[in-house]
């Protein structure tokens, strides 16, 4: 299910004095199974971009294509789109409302036309996937869980629909380092199983470590687009856009300035470590 944006422009409150151009003439294509990170400052159009891809915002001009079909064309099955594209908003825990965890996770499948047995199977698998014991959690009230548990339940509710594309907005904000790593590894697992992942994040280390491709947004335009190494190793450009750079990339830059020969495009921790070990073995 490749996603494609063609010359998309999107404006908030058009025609009033508070008119805001959120994205301008945006074109890009995301292939199946990619892990794409989206970076950019607040107000650069990241959220608009992901909501456009999820079909939650309609562009003023241009097209959003899924599988080559315009998702805003007349007669397009919007509810199938909802099941194919899952979106995890920032703080997804705030969307919980049902009486039990089981019901909340099943909520999205209510109109899917699936058989009840199939629905309960999917709910069980989604919850187990998120690290819960189904029997223990199913009757709990989602509102009485801890913050981290709530977030996992909310994500289970999105995974239960078996989306082909998973969009995440700042998924690791507010998680402790261990939970963050576990979470990102799980996302990578999904991607390895064939899911397309689009992740908005300010966390340069996470982006360098996990993404295969990075999009950088600035003032509603696509400023940089390329594989993770190319984008994340352009420290100067990232800094000029007021974005964070990965710790390993910074360390590599500092070492290079002191005459240590670190290969170009070193942006990940294990790469840096590898380069340093190699040097030590040589000497």
């Amino acid at each position, binding site marked *: 299910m490749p996603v494609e944006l063609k010359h998309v422009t999107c404006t908030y*409150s058009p025609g009033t*004095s508070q008119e805001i151009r959120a994205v301008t003439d945006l074109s890009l294509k995301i292939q199946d199974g990619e892990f794409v990170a989206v970076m950019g400052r607040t107000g650069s159009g990241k959220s608009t971009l992901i*909501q456009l891809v999820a079909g*939650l915002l309609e562009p003023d001009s241009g097209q959003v294509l899924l599988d080559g079909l315009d998702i805003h064309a007349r007669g397009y099955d919007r509810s199938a789109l*909802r099941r194919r594209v*899952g979106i995890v908003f920032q703080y997804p825990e705030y*969307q919980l409302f049902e009486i039990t965890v089981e019901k909340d996770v099943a909520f*999205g499948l*209510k109109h899917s036309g699936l058989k009840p047995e199939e629905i309960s199977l999917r709910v069980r698998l989604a919850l187990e996937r998120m690290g819960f014991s189904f029997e223990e959690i199913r009757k709990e009230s989602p509102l009485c869980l801890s913050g981290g548990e709530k977030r996992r339940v909310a994500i289970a509710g999105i995974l239960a*629909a078996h989306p082909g594309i998973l969009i995440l907005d700042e998924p690791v904000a507010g998680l402790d380092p261990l939970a963050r790593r576990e979470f990102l590894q799980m996302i990578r697992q999904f991607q390895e199983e064939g899911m397309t992942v689009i992740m908005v994040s300010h966390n340069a280390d996470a982006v360098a470590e996990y993404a295969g491709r990075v999009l950088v947004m600035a003032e509603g335009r696509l400023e940089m687009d390329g594989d993770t190494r190319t984008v994340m190793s352009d420290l100067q450009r990232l800094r000029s856009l007021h974005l964070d750079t990965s710790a390993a990339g910074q360390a590599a830059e500092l070492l290079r300035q002191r005459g240590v020969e670190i290969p170009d495009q070193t942006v990940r921790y294990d790469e840096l470590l590898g380069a340093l070990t190699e040097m030590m073995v040589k000497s």
Partner: protein
Amino acid sequence: MSRMPAGQYIPGRSPVHRLDARIKICGFLILLAAVIGAGSWAGYLWVILALAAILRISGLPLRPVLEPFLRLWTFFLVIFLMNALFFDGQGGIWSWWIFHLSAEGVRRGFSVVVHVALALVLGNLLTCTTAPMELMEALKVFLRPLKLIRVPVDDVAMILSVAVQFVPTLLEEADTVKKAQIARGARFESKKLTEKAASFIPLVVPVFIAAFRRADELALAMEARGYRGKRKSPKRKSACLQAPDITALAVCAAVFAVQFLLIHI
């Protein structure tokens, strides 16, 4: 939110926007009296002209100011028909069963509709050109005399201004929750009334929880900064009235005076 609620503040720099909020409330009341007092064609024409002039000066786009009128058209239609058909029990032009269409009724219906519509437009002119916080500050000034009869004016004003400040935040929150629920398959566009009502639960529950959470956080933050309900809040130095304020008030009074003359001549 793609669809802004009607009557919401629209920032601007027109002379109307810059007036003191207290003056705007006074002017609003005077003009409201002029609107209510209007009873003849000349009277209607006069207030419509006055409102059109203010709208023009304020530089507001027409749509948000006139939109409530369009949205409430069924309401206006019902008022008009009630008056037209039931006002004169003897029947004038046309009668059937309990319905009696009369010339006097039509006239009454028309006048009620015009009055309500003009009052709505007037109210919108006030809220569209005044920031909510300014309005609250001004209201606080007008409520001050109630302190004499031990009404906790400061607390009431604080409650009101906190409530007003939270409206945009909660709207935004509601929008996000709605999108999140739609994205996971919720349907808000069901035709059946019962289903429609039930479909709002996934929206209402999270927004309520969010409101309570925010209220808790704010209460904590206020306590942490030493807010005590009883203590006198530091009095903000109220700005002196400027020449434009006085002029505006005079103009409002003149509009009313002309209306008064139109009624009594």
